[in-house]
């Protein structure tokens, strides 16, 4: 079965055939293998982020001016709030779509499951920018949805450059990130537990709610946090689908830096976004850990 290298192996066996100091060297040697990756991250991730943070406190003058400006501006606060609201909506809508879908993936036959998995993966194969373009085509005033509405005699709906349009587009792009973790956890749930619950007197729906759903929660938490965090930093989709009234924080950052060349203010916004992301991660990380393994190891 799955042997976790460091635990599944008796220490005597791991060092078999070589002196003890060698196997100890080998363990330390393993960490060194990660050095190139860490270097790349230092140069291309840590250093740039440090510059962003630094500039937010120093450009144009040292101090907290940029943050004061950010939080004093009603427009900025509205955009910040909107960014969180949109992320929340995308998360909720994705969850509603993903949970039954992932559940269906676990109960259907092999071929149908393959088809359902393909449907989840296909969006990944279509270039992200092109996918957003497709939503422009679908949602625009002369788009597919409005043509359909006109066809059945309903008034057209304004979708492009509105928040609902942004939410729909982002949901589609992020849905796989919700479905896959939930499916992974559901796949590991021992369905015989449901049988056990029924034998103890639970109606099918009750067994589902009391046994299955709690056991699927780690997947739900993981999916929600990934989707929420990716939503917060989303840039292309809202930029193309949204309008001036649905601008999100990322676009504001881009605007400050590229158009207004105001590195300090753009940096401050970026830092706010960054801090929000990591605070959320820190809060959610314990939730995602599976406290009581739903899958059962054979005794």
């Amino acid at each position, binding site marked *: 079965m799955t042997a976790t290298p460091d635990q599944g192996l008796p220490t005597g066996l791991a060092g078999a055939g070589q002196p003890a100091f060698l196997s100890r060297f080998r363990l330390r040697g393993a960490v060194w293998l990660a050095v190139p990756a860490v270097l790349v991250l230092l140069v291309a*991730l840590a250093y740039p982020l440090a510059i962003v943070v630094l500039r937010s406190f120093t450009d144009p003058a040292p101090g907290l001016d940029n943050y004061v400006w950010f939080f004093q501006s009603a427009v900025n606060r509205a955009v910040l709030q909107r960014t969180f609201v949109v992320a929340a909506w995308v998360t909720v809508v994705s969850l509603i779509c993903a949970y039954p879908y992932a559940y269906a993936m676990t109960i259907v036959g092999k071929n149908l499951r393959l088809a359902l998995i393909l449907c989840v993966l296909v969006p990944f194969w279509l270039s992200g920018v092109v996918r957003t373009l497709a939503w422009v085509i679908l949602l625009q005033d002369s788009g597919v949805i409005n043509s359909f509405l006109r066809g059945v005699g309903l008034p057209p709906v304004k979708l492009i450059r509105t928040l609902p349009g942004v939410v729909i587009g982002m949901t589609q792009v992020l849905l796989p990130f919700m479905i896959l973790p939930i499916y992974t956890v559901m796949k590991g749930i021992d369905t015989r537990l449901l049988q056990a619950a029924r034998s103890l007197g639970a109606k099918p729906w009750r067994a589902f709610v009391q046994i299955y759903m709690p056991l699927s929660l780690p997947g739900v938490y993981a999916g929600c946090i990934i989707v929420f965090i990716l939503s917060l930093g989303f*840039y292309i989709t809202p930029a193309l689908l949204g309008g001036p009234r649905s601008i999100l924080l990322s676009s504001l950052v881009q605007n400050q830096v590229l158009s207004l060349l105001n590195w300090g203010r753009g940096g401050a916004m970026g830092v706010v976004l960054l801090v929000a992301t990591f605070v959320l991660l820190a809060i959610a990380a314990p939730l995602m850990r599976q406290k009581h393994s739903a899958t059962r190891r054979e005794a």
Partner: protein
Amino acid sequence: MPSFSRILLGLFCLLVALLLLAPTLVVIPMSFNGNKSLAFPPVGFSWQWYDNFFTNPDWTTSFTNSLIIALIVAVVATVVGTLAAFGVTRAAARTGGLLRALLITPMVVPGVVLAIGIYAVYLDTHLVGTVTGFVLAHTMLAIPFVLIAVQANLEVFDRRLETAAASLGAGRLTVFRTVTLPLILPGVLSGALFAFITSFDEIIVALFITSPYLKTLPVQIYTSITRDADPTVAAVGTLLFLATSLIIIAGLLIGTRRGRT
């Protein structure tokens, strides 16, 4: 569960599947549009947008640029990421966990924040609009994907096989070449594929560090979308979709055949 709720579930899943597939279903017909318009449904039929893609230097150079950058990234990120995966899996549990958390941060850092940081650094170091600049940024973004793919394979890899090979007289490098690598190859290959796609598809950082002299395909697509309603983007999208699908399906087929033997 009674069959009524099963039917309801089936219908719901059909809708979700439709939502997932919608963009693909739109882009493909659009690429054969007879008019220079992105209004749906397309009118007439023509290959002109495919023709445009293969002849217009804006499109061909950006495509070549993307291809070169993505190939380099795939190689570099796969090597660096695979090494890191070994480090993470075989270090002590605590160190490994910490290292892993560190190495996958590029996945969660908001793209725009990262982009302005990299832009700032590149402006100072004259890396804007250079292949080196793109490769460095994209490698950083691709490492987490390689790490995850390879690590998944390494974790189910039975290390006793290495001990066994060593006991049979194989040196450490020989063990790696003849036992470890062949067994984790599926993970390495899918990591390479992820790295390639990550780079080939990357747009946010690219929008910042691009220059008129070095544009990647996503940047070209983005400018085309924002500037005019040119169905060439649909043709590009369709081609990319077909290429990725073929690669992934081939990968799946090879994977299942390997699994069977």
